[in-house]
């Protein structure tokens, strides 16, 4: 029974991890290539979820809605890049932080205006709403398995794109040396727009994956954005591989902390203090992890070779 729980928790950690990866991948690319701190990345995650809400109820089909919503978020990403982000690449990080915080406020206000303040649920079709029995009595909700599958598929696709294709070569070149990518004769502005929109679409997809579990909410992106930043910092800015490993690491630590920390703490202190200390400690866990990693590796686990 104990290890059944453990395997369930591993799967839960994996699911959280791939979700974080979807969000962090775009963030780390935009950051690594354009040197652009995009606080509004979480807003794109939120917008993806809201697009999906509206489309699901309009079309009556969740998969179709996801497909269209991903495209819509991609287009929104292009728009944001052209109207705001593009003008900020040459600015220092402070200006970027300020402007993209403005974007967060703007999107939160816009969603409040359009969809109202209440959370919006997404109804899943029956075939996604059930559970799947794995061997040895492990049961997991179907939709969580779907998230894991989609997340891993996107991860594999992205790593293929970055390591095996010409576009990927340009992206990597851009991440390690911006001037060089320009020298390779690419239209760097188009590449930037494309990467930004790709990141937006992945963030939007992550929002669509979580909304059927938690509802689409105003500010849902702000909450998770900080965690996504933790992921890319741990992984090393600009590194897809780093983002993937760090996302799984953070997902696992978060889930395992919530599952086992209180039992562990009870071994070393009395029950009462353990009950108070462990929630705080598990909330702090990822920050402690990040501070610890940065202490020993000030540029994360997998920093790109040259900047």
């Amino acid at each position: 029974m104990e290890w059944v729980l453990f395997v369930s928790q591993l799967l839960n950690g994996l699911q959280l991890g791939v979700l974080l990866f979807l969000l962090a991948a775009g963030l780390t690319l935009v950051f690594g290539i354009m040197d652009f701190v995009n606080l509004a990345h979480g807003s794109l995650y939120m917008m993806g979820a809201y697009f999906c809400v509206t489309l699901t109820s309009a079309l009556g089909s969740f998969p179709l809605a996801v497909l269209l919503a991903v495209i819509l978020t991609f287009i929104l990403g292009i728009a944001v890049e052209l109207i705001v982000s593009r003008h900020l690449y040459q600015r220092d990080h402070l200006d970027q932080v300020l402007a993209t915080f403005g974007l967060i406020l703007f999107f939160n206000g816009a969603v409040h205006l359009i969809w109202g303040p209440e959370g919006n649920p997404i109804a899943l079709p029956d075939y996604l709403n059930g559970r799947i029995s794995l061997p040895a009595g492990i049961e997991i909700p179907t939709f969580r398995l779907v998230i894991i599958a989609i997340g891993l598929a996107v991860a594999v696709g992205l790593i293929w794109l970055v390591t095996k294709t010409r576009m990927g070569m340009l992206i990597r070149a851009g991440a390690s040396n911006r001037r060089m990518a320009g020298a390779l004769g690419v239209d760097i502005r188009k590449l930037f727009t494309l990467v930004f929109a790709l990141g937006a679409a992945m963030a939007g997809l992550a929002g669509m994956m979580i909304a059927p579990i938690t509802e689409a909410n105003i500010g849902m992106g702000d909450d998770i954005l900080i965690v996504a930043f933790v992921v890319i910092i741990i992984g090393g800015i600009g590194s897809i591989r780093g983002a993937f490993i760090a996302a799984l690491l953070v997902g696992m630590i978060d889930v395992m902390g919530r599952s086992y920390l209180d039992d562990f703490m009870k071994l070393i202190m009395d029950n009462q203090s353990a009950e108070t200390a462990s929630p705080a400690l598990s909330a702090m866990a990822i920050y402690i992890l990040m501070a610890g990693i940065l202490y020993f590796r000030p540029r994360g686990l997998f920093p790109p070779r040259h900047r």
Partner: protein
Amino acid sequence: MRIHKMGLISVATAAIMGAAVLAAPALAADKVKIGFVTTLTTPAAVIGNDMKDAFDLANEHIGGTMAGLEIEIIYEDDGFKPEIGKQKTDKLVKQDDVDFITGYIWSHVLLASRKSALDAGKFMISANAGPSQLAGKLCHKNFFSTSWQNDQTPMALGEVLNQRGVKSLYIMSPNYAAGKNMAAGVERTFKGEIKGKDMTKWGKDAQLDFSAELAKAKASGTEAIFVFYPGKAGGAFIKQYMQAGLNESIPLYTVYTVDALSLPKFQKAEMKGVLGSLATQFWSPDLDTPQNEKFVSAFLAKYGRYPSFYAAQSYDTLFFIKSAVEAVGGDLTNMDGMRAAMEKADYPSVRGPYSYGNNHFPIQNFYLREAATDSEGRWTTKIVSTVYSNHQDVYAKECKL
């Protein structure tokens, strides 16, 4: 470029001028001014809007006057932040010079705002938040609650569990003061075994994915699950509880989680498993009092949805204020007279008659209610039984009033 800059300068200047101009002096007292601080932005605005709608409805039912005085209501948004709540309270009591200040969903906003309102000599009436401090040591002659003290509802639920012969329980609650109060409340009265307890992250980046906790609860072999997840976390929790299939094996007991705000969403998402789940509350839309019938039917007619308990408390609050103002014939300077009237709770409350304890928190009934379908197929809650009659909170004895 130049135009933009000039535009910015004028915006900034206008803002500064605006601060001075909008701060128009208060007029003489031919009005009753009521300040209402609640959350109108962020997802919690769902609660704030429900309260505001109910308060407006009450004003409509009263006819916009009390004791011949016109009612002026000023709503302010606390943005879910204690600091902003305090600032808005300062504005209401100092700039708008309101006579009563009410609203307050959140304990920390209420605690932060309390001194500003009370030091200015205003009546402060909480229409929701009921932190233990204000019921105990920090009780004040000019502070009243029209809701409840945090611990009462979960204590009633613990009692229900005992009555139903539940032997073991798994507790989940957010890791903040009210969440801890709720968990402590149910533990205080529940006599069986606590199989496990998870306090989950709350606040700005609250935890909304409960997969790990649900897996633990399932593995613990508990007979029942108790949760307190107000607002957006409630919907998320119930969904995952269903998706994990636990509704087929482990019954769910809740406080402040399955309510008029979340049920329509469950219905929209066709989560039938939530029907039949049990919760305790001081009030329910089907409670049989004349005032409640009038309130619920009018609310349904006007807004097309059932009112939540937040709405019920807010609706009550205006009638409560009216009883005080009429008792002194509209003489708003007669604080002592108004206070004496309020202490009697002599007004038609939607929950039926109740009384006030020394700490100005209600002594009232608590009911067990069940999520069910009404005659028109809408999901709502129905009363099953009375758990506590005239129950007083445990902190009243710490109050020196």
